[in-house]
C-alpha cells in the first residue's frame, strides 16, 4: 500500500470506450415475464461521465446491475475494457472485475452497521491490491471524500446520511475502479447535500481517469455533472446526447414531458406540467 494519490493506469487513455453495452435485454421471470431492459446500447469512455435518467420502472437500475453481472442477461453483450463481463454466480468474482465498482442508493443499507468504517474502506483497498493495483490507506480515502481522516475507527451510525454516502464512495474508490457506477446515489440524501455529493463523485472519478455511469431520476443534478445524458423509457433508450443539449432542447416527446414536469425552486409558483394520464410516448430513439 502506498500513501498519497496516484492516477490509475489508464488515466492517459481518456476517450477510449471502456464500457460497451450492446443489445442488452433483461427479462425478469414471472407471470407474465417482465422485459425490464429491451435493446439498450450504451458506452462509457474513460474519464467520461454518463448520466442515465428515467422514471421508476424504466429499467435504469437493471442496466446498472447487468453491467456488474448482478442480473442475468437474456441477450446482448457487456464488454468492459475489451473483455466480456460474466454474470456473477456462486464463485467469487474474477479479481479483474473489481475494476467496476458500484455505489448504491441507500448508505444505511450498503454499509455494515457493526464494522468500523476504516475496515470497510479497507475492503476496497484489499480488492485493489488483490489484482495488483495500488491504493491508499483508508484515512487517505476519508480525507479525499471530505471527511475527517481520524474517523476511520468510528461506525456508520455516528454519521449522517450524506456522510455515509461519502464513506460508501470512499470504499468504492479505494478499490481503484476504472468504472464507477452510482445507482441513485444521491436520492436518499437531503437536498442541500445532493449536488455536492454528486459533484464529488464526478470529480474523484474523472481525476483518477475512471468512467462514471451516474443513474438518477433527478435531472436537475445530473445535468450539472454529466457529459452525456441517456434517457430511458419503458426499458429502452429514447434519447441520448450531450447533457447540456438535451437539457436545453429535448427532442424526444418523453424527454420533453419529463423536463416539463420538474418543478423549479424559483418561488414563481409556476406549476409543473403534468402529462396526460394515459400518455404514451414513441419508443423510437433520438440519438445525437
Amino acid at each position: 500500500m502506498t500513501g498519497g494519490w496516484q492516477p490509475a493506469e489508464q488515466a492517459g487513455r481518456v476517450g477510449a470506450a471502456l464500457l460497451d453495452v450492446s443489445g442488452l435485454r433483461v427479462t425478469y421471470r414471472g407471470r407474465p415475464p417482465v422485459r425490464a431492459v429491451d435493446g439498450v446500447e450504451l458506452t462509457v469512455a474513460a474519464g467520461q461521465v454518463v448520466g442515465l435518467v428515467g422514471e421508476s420502472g424504466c429499467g435504469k437500475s437493471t442496466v446498472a446491475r447487468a453491467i456488474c453481472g448482478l442480473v442475468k442477461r437474456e441477450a446482448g453483450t457487456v464488454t468492459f475494457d475489451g473483455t466480456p463481463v460474466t454474470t456473477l454466480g456462486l464463485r467469487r468474482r474474477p479479481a479483474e472485475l473489481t475494476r467496476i465498482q458500484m455505489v448504491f442508493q441507500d448508505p444505511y443499507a450498503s454499509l455494515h452497521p457493526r464494522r468500523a468504517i476504516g475496515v470497510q474502506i479497507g475492503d476496497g483497498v484489499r480488492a485493489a491490491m488483490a489484482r495488483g493495483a495500488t491504493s491508499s490507506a483508508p484515512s487517505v480515502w476519508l480525507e479525499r471524500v471530505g471527511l475527517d481522516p481520524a474517523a476511520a475507527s468510528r461506525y456508520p451510525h455516528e454519521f449522517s446520511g450524506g456522510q455515509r454516502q461519502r464513506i460508501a464512495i470512499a470504499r468504492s474508490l479505494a478499490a481503484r475502479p476504472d468504472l464507477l457506477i452510482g445507482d441513485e446515489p444521491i436520492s436518499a440524501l437531503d437536498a442541500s447535500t445532493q449536488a455536492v455529493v454528486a459533484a464529488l463523485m464526478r470529480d474523484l472519478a474523472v481525476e483518477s481517469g475512471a468512467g462514471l455511469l451516474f443513474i438518477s431520476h433527478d435531472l436537475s443534478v445530473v445535468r450539472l455533472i454529466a457529459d452525456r445524458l441517456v434517457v430511458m423509457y419503458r426499458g429502452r433508450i429514447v434519447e441520448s446526447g450531450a447533457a447540456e443539449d438535451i437539457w436545453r432542447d429535448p427532442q424526444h416527446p418523453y424527454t420533453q414531458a419529463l423536463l416539463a414536469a420538474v418543478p423549479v425552486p424559483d418561488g414563481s409558483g409556476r406549476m409543473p406540467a403534468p402529462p396526460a394520464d394515459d400518455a404514451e410516448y414513441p419508443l423510437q430513439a433520438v440519438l445525437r
Partner: protein
Amino acid sequence: MTRDHATETVLEIAGLTVGIGRTEILRGVNLSLKAGRIQGLAGESGSGKTMTGLAVMGLLPSGSRVTGSITYGDLELVGLSARRRNALRGTAMAMVFQDPSTSLHPMLSVSAQLTDHLRHHLGISRGAARDRAVELLDTVRIPDPAGALRRYPHQFSGGQRQRIAIAIALACSPRILIADEPTTALDVTVQAGVLHLLRDLASEMGLAVLLVTHDLGVMSAVADRVAVMRHGEVVENGERHQVFTAPAHPYTASLLASLPGAAGGVQSLDDVRALEGL
C-alpha cells in the same frame, strides 16, 4: 393575491414545544393555517417538520411532553382528551403520508377502505357511503371511480394510490389536510398531477393544507406561504415569492444556494465545487 385578507384562520399553532425523553424536538413553533391556502413547511430530515404535522393530528408518540397551544376554531387541542381528539381526526383534520403503498391496506379493496371509513364516521347507509365514495374518487380524478371501488391497491399506479389515500383523507370533509411528503415517493411526471390536485383542493374546497416537504421545487410550485424549519424551530415564515427570492434567514439562503435552479442556487459544476469549499 388579495384573497389573503378574506381567508379565515382555521388552525393556529403558538409557541408549540414538544419534548420526547431528554430531547426537545419542537421548540416554540408558530404557524397558522388558513382556509384555501397551502402553508408549506420545509427543512431537512430531522428538522421537526413531520412532528409538527403529527402534533396537529394528535399523533405524537406516547410520553411526549407538549406545551404551547394549537387552537382549532375556539378549541384548544393541547391537553384535549384522547376521545375528543379521536373525534376530530378525519372530520376536522386528516393526514396523507409519503408512501401510499404502506398507508393503504394491501388486502382490502378500495371500497372496503373508503366506505367502511365513511360509515364509521358518518353513520350512513351502505348505498349512501358508496355514492359518496364514487364522488370522492371522482374528486381526486381516478378514472372509472365505480369500477375502481372493486379493485385493490396493487392494481393502481403509485400516483393513483396517492390519490386514493387523499380521497380517504377527504372522506369526512376535514377542514385541514396535512400532506407529509405526499409526492416524494412519486415520479416527477406523476408528482405534477398530484400537485395540481392539491392546489385545486385548496382553492375549490377551501381546504387548509399543511404541505410538509423537503423538496423546495414542490414548495415553489404550490405553497402560498413557506415556513423553513431547522432543529425544531421555524427560522423563517413568509410569502412564497419573498422566501425564495429574498430569504430573511441565512439558513434559508444556504438551502437555496445548494439547489440547481433556485435564485442564487448552483448553476454549474463550478458553483457546486465552490459550495464544497465552504
